[in-house]
Every structure is written in C-alpha cells, then in structure tokens.
C-alpha cells in the first residue's frame, strides 16, 4: 500500500454548478504531488473535501487505505490559499491555540513552537500581535502552525504567495526537508516553475474534471512530440533549407553568425532520428541536436487549450 491518499470518483455539486466530476487520484506516500489547474477548476473544493470541510456528493476518499474519517484530521496539515490569523491576538498565544486544536498538548506545542521559531529565526515575535507583523512574517507563522503537529499529509495551497523570493526559498527548503522526513505533500498551484522544481507527480484539473495525472517525468515523455532543435554549420544560403523544408516538417528557422549557422526546429514523424540525421550527413556539419522536452507550463497550457476547444 503505497498511497497515502486515494480519491475514488469524487463528485461535488453546488446547486447547478458542478465543482468536481468523478475525479480519481492516487497520491503516493512520501512524494510531492502537484495539483494543477486554472482558477476555479475545482482544486480548492477537492482539497476541502480531503480536509473534511465539505463532503463529496459521490465517491470516496481513502487515507492510508481506510475511508476518511474525523480522526484523520489530526494527521493532515493544511495551509489554505485564503489564509489569515486573528489580528489582535499575540503570535505565541495564537500558535499555541491552533496547535492545541490539532490535538497537541500545551507543553508539547510550546516545545515544538520554540524549535520552529528558532529555526525560522523569529524567536522574538512571540509576544507581538499579528497586526504588527508584515504579510510575509504572518505567512511564516502560518507555515509553522500548519506543520507543527507533524502530519503525515501536508496540503499547501499556493504556499509561496505573499513571500519575498528569499523567504520563498527558505519555505521551499523546509518543504523539501519535510519530504525527506517522510511526509507526503500535496501542492496546489498554478505557478509552474515551482511545480518543475518540487513535484514528482502531478494531476491536472480543469473545469471540474481531471485531465491527466501521473509521474511528471512520464507525462513529459508522453507529451514530447519529437521536436528537435538543430544547429547546422553552413556556407550561406545554399538551398539546404529549401531541401529540408520539402522533406521534413520545419517549424521555424533562422540564419545566425552572418549566415554561417542555420538554426531550426523540426518535428519528426517518429522518435527515430536516424533517417533525419543520415539525410543531413555530408550536407552540413551538425553543431547541435537537442530534443525539446515540454515544460510543465507547456503541458498545462496545451492540455487546457485542447480541452477548451472541444467545449
């Protein structure tokens, strides 16, 4: 049993609006799982169902193989996208309260809070009120409160919003550390660069439906469509480009280095590059030849766009 969480055909409807339509997911243990999708796709609804804030109309959620129930709340840590703290309460007091809500004892919570406050270098904030802190500072508190009870599953909804790049990096490192320690992490975002950096697995949700899911590397392999970047050493325009255009699908081309180099991208009919390379041999020097792997962003945009066309 390698999945921390399994969603089985989960559907949720609000009035006439379908928020989730038969979404199934498998989130492997000890991984960082990216939940991607445009705004309003249904990510937050799915996350709220996992947190038992709302309940699915149809379908089931399994946590470590067992149907999700109230006791699992203490094993999940959730950092919502819409997040905040009591503005006029003191940082320490508030963190203690929220930790105790998650089932920690007061002494235990205090000890762990001290550790985290030291770790993130905010020890002297204990007696400050939230309204005295900047947004980024409050986010740090929020992060600590989310991870404090050492949950088995952490759910971060846009965790880096509100952080400056330096603190975003600190938080990113902390997330990776938590993964090292065995925590499974669901990471909901539409910021693709952080997906590339962090996620091993992704699922793409669009208009209440899951469009694709799986290991990011496999998805990328599946989405690469034999496009190669080629750089040839040539002696000015000599008809080679025209010849290539007749025989292959050239997507774009340009001469650089005063006509001494021809760069172009080509889409080959299959993954077999032999025919193309042997066609070139003798005609020009192959300076570089790289396969383009689609970025998560490309996959995201492509999938969302293709699915929108069929509306």
């Amino acid at each position, binding site marked *: 049993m390698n999945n921390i969480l399994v969603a089985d055909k989960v559907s949720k409807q*609000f*009035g006439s609006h379908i928020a989730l339509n038969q979404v199934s997911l498998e989130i492997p243990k000890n991984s960082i799982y990216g939940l991607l999708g445009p705004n309003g796709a249904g990510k937050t609804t799915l996350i*709220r169902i996992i*947190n*038992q*804030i*709302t309940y699915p109309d149809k379908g089931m959620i399994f946590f470590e193989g067992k149907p999700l129930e*109230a006791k699992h*709340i203490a094993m*999940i840590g*959730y950092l*919502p996208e*819409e*997040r*905040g*703290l*009591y*503005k006029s309460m003191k940082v320490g007091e508030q963190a203690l309260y*929220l930790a105790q*809500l*998650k089932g920690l004892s007061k002494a235990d919570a205090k000890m762990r809070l001290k550790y985290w406050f030291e770790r993130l270098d905010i020890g002297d904030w204990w007696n400050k009120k939230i309204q005295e802190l900047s947004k980024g500072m409050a986010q740090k508190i*929020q992060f600590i*409160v989310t991870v404090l009870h050492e949950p088995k599953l952490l759910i971060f909804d846009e965790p880096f919003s509100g952080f400056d790049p330096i603190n975003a990096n600190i938080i990113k490192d902390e997330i990776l550390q938590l993964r090292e320690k065995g925590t499974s992490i669901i990471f909901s975002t539409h910021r693709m660069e952080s997906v590339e950096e962090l996620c091993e697995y992704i699922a793409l949700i669009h208009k209440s439906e899951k469009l694709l899911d799986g290991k990011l590397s496999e998805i990328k392999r599946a989405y690469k469509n034999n496009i190669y970047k080629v750089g040839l050493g040539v002696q000015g325009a000599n008809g080679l480009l025209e010849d290539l255009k007749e025989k292959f699908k050239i997507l774009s081309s340009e001469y650089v280095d005063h006509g001494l180099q021809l760069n172009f991208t080509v889409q080959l009919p299959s993954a077999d590059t032999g025919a193309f390379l042997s066609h070139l041999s003798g005609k020009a020097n192959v300076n570089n030849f790289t396969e383009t792997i689609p970025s998560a962003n490309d996959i995201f945009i492509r999938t969302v766009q293709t699915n929108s066309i069929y509306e």
Partner: protein
Amino acid sequence: MTFLSPILMVGMVVLIVYLTKINDNQSKVIGVLNDSDYFSTDFQSTESTSFLKFKDIDVEAAKDSIMGMGYYGLLYIPEGDNLEIVANKAVFYSKDAPGSTLLDNLENVFEDRLRLQRLQDLGVSVSDFERIDHHFEMTTSTFSGERNLKGINEIKAFIGGAFGYLIMMFIIIYGGFVMRSVIEEKTSRIIEVIISSVKPFQLMLGKIIGTSLAGVTQFVIWIVSGVLLFGLVIMIFDIDPSAFNAGTENTPGLVGGAAYMAASDSAIQLYANELFKIPWIMLICFFMVYFVLGYLIYSSIYAAIGAAVDNETDTQQFIFPIILPLMLAIYVGFFSVFNNPHGPIAVGFSLFPLTSPIVMLMRLPGGIGEGGVPYWELTVSILLLIITFMGIVWLAAKIYRVGILMYGKKPSYRDLIKWLKY
C-alpha cells in the same frame, strides 16, 4: 464593564432619585391678582408652588412685575357678578406654556369651588357634600379569601417585564457579539485554518455556548453586586423605598386628604408584602433557563448571518427580521400581559418560541400553578424552545458551513435557501 455596569446602574437610580428631589424642591412662584370676591383663601402655598398675592394694581403692572422678577406666571381673576362668570374670565399668564401638573392643580381649585357653588345652588350644604364626596375603592379578593391588590398585576408584570427586557438586551448585545466574531474570523481569513481542525458545527456551537456562559456569568455578577450595592446605597443615603411611587397623588384638593394618605400608607405595606411574596428565586432560575434557551436560538441565527456576509454593513437586512419578534414580544408584553397576564394573547406569545423567553417571564412573577402560569404552559413553552433551538441550530449550521467559505457576493434570502440544500 462586567463589574462597572452594576455600579453605573445603581448610580443612575441614585441620580434619578436625587434629581427628582431637587426638581420637587425647586418651587414655582405664581402671582395671583384676584379682583373678585371669591378664592380669597384657596391659593395656599405648597412645597412645590408658592402663591404671591397682588392687590390693587392693574393686570399689566402685575404681568410686568412677574416678568421682571422672573417668576413662573400670573393668575388673573377678574371682577364679576357671580362665580361662573369670574371663573370663565380667569386667565393664567406665563412665559411658556404652563406645565400640565400645575395647570391641573389650578383647574382643580376652580372645579372644586364651582362644584361647591353649584351644589349650594341646588341646596346641598358643605357638610352634606363632604359626606357624599367619599373616595371609594373596591375591595378585591381571591376565591380563597386572600386580599387582592389593585395594580399588583401591573407591578408584577413590570418586574417580569424588566427581566424580559434584560433578556432582549442581552440577546441583541451578545448575539451581535457572536455575529461580529464570525465576521472577524471570515474577514481575517483564519476561518479555513480553523475548520480544517474542528468541524464548522463545533466551532459555531462552541462560540454560541461560550458567549452564553459569559452572559450568565455577567448576570450573576450583576445580580449579586447589584443587590449588595442597592443595600449599601439604601443604608448610606437612607432612601425611603416608598419614595419611588409617591409624588403623584399630592394634588391640593379641598377635601379627602389625610384619611386617603393613611389608607395609601397601609396599601404600600400590603404591596411591599405582595412583592416579597413574589417567588424571586424561582423567577431568577427561570430567567436563566429562558435566557439561555432564547439566547441559543437567537445567537444561532446571528451566527448564520455573520457567516453569510463579508462585513457588518451588510447585516442590516438580515438583522431586522430578528429584532422584530423581540420588539413584538416586548410590546405585546407591555400592552397585553400587563392587563391580563393569563389572557389568550399572553398565553399564545408565551408559548411561541421566538417570543416566549420575554413574554413568559412577564407572566411568571404571578407564580406557577394555581393563580399563576399553569404547569403545562410552562412545560410546553420550554419544550417548544428546546425543539426550536435544535431546529434553528440545524438550519443555521447549514448556512454557516457554506457561508464562512463564501466571499465577495452579498447573499440574498434566495441564496441562503439555496445554501440549505448544499
């Protein structure tokens, strides 16, 4: 505020008593220019009014001197052939329209004199008249022979009314407190953090029960410290408790007087006895019961409203329908229960759960059981309250659950009904 409020309240009562005394002490001076042959002995100065008699000057001069001295007014009684003519021609001059009590007193003097004159015209002597003009009061009694006191129902209902009014105030104040706290959690966006740890229903109920206990605590502090303070104040200032209802009956009449005063003195004693007989402990216990139940119902609605909106300004349209039954209860209570504590309207409103906490408390000072609120009515009204509470909490929780995660749009009633189905 918890400890300060009772002090403020007692202080206010002391202030009112003190001000009333000052007000009474400051007597009005009224000039009397009497050119007629009548009324020569009628205008005797009293504590509140002193009469200054003018002689042998004309009206304008009298008016000028009254104005010059800054006195209250001038009563001019012209010459005339008989009393009727004189009375009809008499004029009261004053800077502003005269106070109604003063005018009544003056009119009473004329009325009495006219009545005597007319009786004499009809051949009735003064002594005959005094025998006729006797204040009469019906003796009322219960079937079991206890003496009933007139107005005691009103006094009892008034005491109940005070409790009912307190309940209304607390529901509005503490309900608003619950509502604002829900709105605060919503606007500060902490709500989603919290409900990922506790169920929305738990959060809502915890909030409501917490504030209701705070309310009960506040009441207990008020009642204890209020009783202590009143005792202290009465001891220190030596205030006669009967001063609260005296002061209205002192009309300077020609007849009546001493005997009536003596009668009312013993009546005060009877009323005091009756007040002591009110089952205060029972009343306070039921007050707590009705306060808690009524509060639970209303504050669940307040919580739902807080969850439905984004800020306090949007709450108006939802708050009005809540205040309405409360106001209705107070007014129905004051107008209907005072007259007839066990009439059909009073019974109906003391059973209807949204008004019963207030109206039932107005009826309760009359006691429970025989002669008071029947046991079945009390039981039914409390049962109805409990059932309603469960129903309302169930509905409110549904609105709350959806509302706390909704931002941006100000919901209509139709939206709220839609949320119930999510």
